[in-house]
């Protein structure tokens, strides 16, 4: 059978009409009209014939015989239940211990705008540029550590090792992940995060803002996102816009939750909570800190602490000085449940560098940091660099990168796996020249020893270098095997027109591939949050997905959740197959 070209029905009857007609679900008059028409309409006949063929094929399928031991097993189960007089199923979760409720702080419109400017100043840039094959000489900060020395650890690298091709699939996650919202509430942000070392443990959170309160819901799964349990609901003030989760690499039941006032108050921008029991009970950790790039391993946290100084909200404001920047943003480590933090980026500042992102390998605890010159933001021609530390920031060694990676670009780093080499892409994003694609991608699978130029994301070639007017930029994600995954969301041009019917498609670039592969559409008229509430929003309708058996779930490396404006939330966890 081949797909025919179906002529149009002169009455304009749709497949929906014919389906309803087949189901006898139309009013009598309409049904009679279709009956009279269909016999002479080739278009309708084709659809009707296809419906009949599908029904016949379904009816022809013969199920196998049921298990002959089924009755015996059922008898045994009944007998066991009679003996045990089972306790009621689905005992309700105790939520007696809930985190403290903080009063919310309103976010004035002016603050929103100015904060947005501030965010823009420090936001990760989605795209960068790289060069072709390249090798550089390592340099060091502080006490030189010329050669990274992996620290032996009990966390063995399972998958993947550099260059190992992975089959990746998306999977619909918690269908029961429905925020406990009231009518009219809006789900502002949600996030799902896997344990870095336990593929079966993941947590999800959402923030729904209603008229007077914001509700934060937390879910947990310990079977690879097969089933989810709603473990906590807490009402907060209106200030909360987003939630960010982090799971201790050594202790999957230890999870940290940061409530982010994305465009919030100047003096108090977030609240941080800690749970040691898988999200059921929480205790307050800290106020007034916006922690980004947070990683925790063995109760030792490393994160970028961003303050919100009022000086940046006065207009006009000159370019922040080095001291101002250092005051408002620090990379720090805490060993006492966030009570105190010790900066670990002083060596960068001393060299005139500013850290932009931090990652950690769960296996050996090695840190990877990207940095730019402190003049990088106003001067994008400055280089972007990568540095590694194997002693929690006491010493840093530069990882070779291609030259001339612009500071307005950035690095994508695959979810670190065990002690495997860093997989990273430097992406240089230049500008908006129409029909002058200037986005280049250079990737390494061996901690920077070699870099290879990769094809630019397909959406860039479709849109030119930049989709003018596109607010919902398509930010690639790097998968642990070095593949790049990117949604193409350039669906709306500045004039409101649909730029491409490919909008909403997901694109994959495997490490060995020379071109991006369209792997289907995503979403169901929904917005998808990739990487948390502070990153890119994309609109991905009609998500198609494959199911994968839970026992084939490999190491986790990413996730994204879609939340529709109606509050319905679907989650899709991406997992690798071992």
């Amino acid at each position, binding site marked *: 059978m081949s797909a025919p070209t179906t002529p149009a029905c002169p009455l304009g009857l749709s497949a929906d009409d014919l389906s*309803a007609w087949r189901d006898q679900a139309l009013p009598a008059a309409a049904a009679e009209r279709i009956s009279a028409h269909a016999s002479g309409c080739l278009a309708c006949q084709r659809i009707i014939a296809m419906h009949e063929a599908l029904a016949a094929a379904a009816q022809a399928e013969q199920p196998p015989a049921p298990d002959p031991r089924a009755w015996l097993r059922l008898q045994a189960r009944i007998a066991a239940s009679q003996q045990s007089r089972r306790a009621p199923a689905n005992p309700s979760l105790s939520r007696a211990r809930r985190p403290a409720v903080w009063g919310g702080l309103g976010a004035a419109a002016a603050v929103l705008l100015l904060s947005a400017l501030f965010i823009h100043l420090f936001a990760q840039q989605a795209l960068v540029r790289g060069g072709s094959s390249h090798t550089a000489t390592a340099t060091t900060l502080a006490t030189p550590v010329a050669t990274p020395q992996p620290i032996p650890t009990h966390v063995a690298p399972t998958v993947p090792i550099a260059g190992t091709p992975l089959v990746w699939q998306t999977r619909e996650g918690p269908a029961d992940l429905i925020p406990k919202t009231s009518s009219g509430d809006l789900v502002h942000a949600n996030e799902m995060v896997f344990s870095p070392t336990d593929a079966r443990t993941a947590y999800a959170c959402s923030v729904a803002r209603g008229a007077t309160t914001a509700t934060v819901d937390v879910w947990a799964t310990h079977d690879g996102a097969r089933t989810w349990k709603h473990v906590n609901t807490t009402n907060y003030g209106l200030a909360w816009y987003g939630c960010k989760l982090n799971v201790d690499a050594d202790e999957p039941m230890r999870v940290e939750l940061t409530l982010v006032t994305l465009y919030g108050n100047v003096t108090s921008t977030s609240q941080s909570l800690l749970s040691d029991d898988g999200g059921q009970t929480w205790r307050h950790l800290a106020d007034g800190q916006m922690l980004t790039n947070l990683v925790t391993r063995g109760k030792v946290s490393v994160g970028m602490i961003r303050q919100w100084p009022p000086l940046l909200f006065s207009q006009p404001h000159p370019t922040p000085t080095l001291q101002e920047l250092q005051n408002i943003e620090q990379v720090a480590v805490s060993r006492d449940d966030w009570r105190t933090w010790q900066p670990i980026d002083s060596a960068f500042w001393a060299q005139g560098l500013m850290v932009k992102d931090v990652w950690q390998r769960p296996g050996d605890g090695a840190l990877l940091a990207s940095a730019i010159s402190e003049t990088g933001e106003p001067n994008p021609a400055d280089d972007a660099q990568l540095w590694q530390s194997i002693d929690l920031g006491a010493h840093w060694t530069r990882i070779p990168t291609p030259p001339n990676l612009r500071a307005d670009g950035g690095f994508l780093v695959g979810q670190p796996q065990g002690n495997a080499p860093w997989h990273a892409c430097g992406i240089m994003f230049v500008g908006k020249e129409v029909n002058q694609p200037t986005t280049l991608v250079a990737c390494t699978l061996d901690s920077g020893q070699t870099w290879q130029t990769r094809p630019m994301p397909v959406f860039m070639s479709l849109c030119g270098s930049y989709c003018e007017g596109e607010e919902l930029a398509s930010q690639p994600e790097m998968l642990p095997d070095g593949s790049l995954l990117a949604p193409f969301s350039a669906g709306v041009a500045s004039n409101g027109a649909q730029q491409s019917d490919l909008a909403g498609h997901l694109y994959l670039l495997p490490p060995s591939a020379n071109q991006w592969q369209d792997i289907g*559409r995503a979403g169901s008229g929904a917005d998808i949050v990739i990487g948390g509430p502070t990153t890119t929003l994309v609109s991905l309708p009609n998500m198609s997905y494959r199911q994968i058996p839970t026992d084939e779930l490999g190491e986790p490396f990413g996730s994204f959740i879609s939340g529709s404006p109606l509050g319905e939330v679907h989650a899709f966890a991406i997992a690798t197959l071992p």
Partner: protein
Amino acid sequence: MALRSQRLSEPPEPSAAPAAAQAHDAPSFELFYQRHAGAIFGYLWRVCGDEQTANDLTQDVFFSAWRHFEKLRGYDRPEAWLFRVATNLALNERRHQRVAGPAASLHGYERAAGDHAAQFAERSALRGALEGLPAQQRAAFILREVYGHSCAEVAELLGVSRAAAKMTLSRARASLRRLYLHEEAAE
């Protein structure tokens, strides 16, 4: 197949019936099981696409039936109740991804290599297409086309409105047309 008009609702939480009464019911319950188990298993197999899951869920259905047997055996058409419970269990199963069936093939996706591809190749185009459907669409299609339930009955079994059932059926057919034709063309 006509459904009785009785309201089909989620069975209540189990309440341990007196052991004596349960023992007294055992012979007739076995007869009840033997009469309906094959149909329920076949339905669950079609919806879940997995034999083991269908066996497990069939046991769940009849374990629930046993708990409510006193009421259930008073029904003229108890299979309606069984189908409703089976549908709920199957949808819940699919929703929680307990069904470990082979990945459905959808246009534009790379098929997995190795055993997965081999498994897939052995499957019929229709089965592959059915497995690509969302669980509710799949159940609706099977209930309508295989078991002959009316649109209203499908709505009741799925616990949705008639309009939603009509739309679900239409979407199921649309997806099947697309997926089925794609599979046929690929072979």
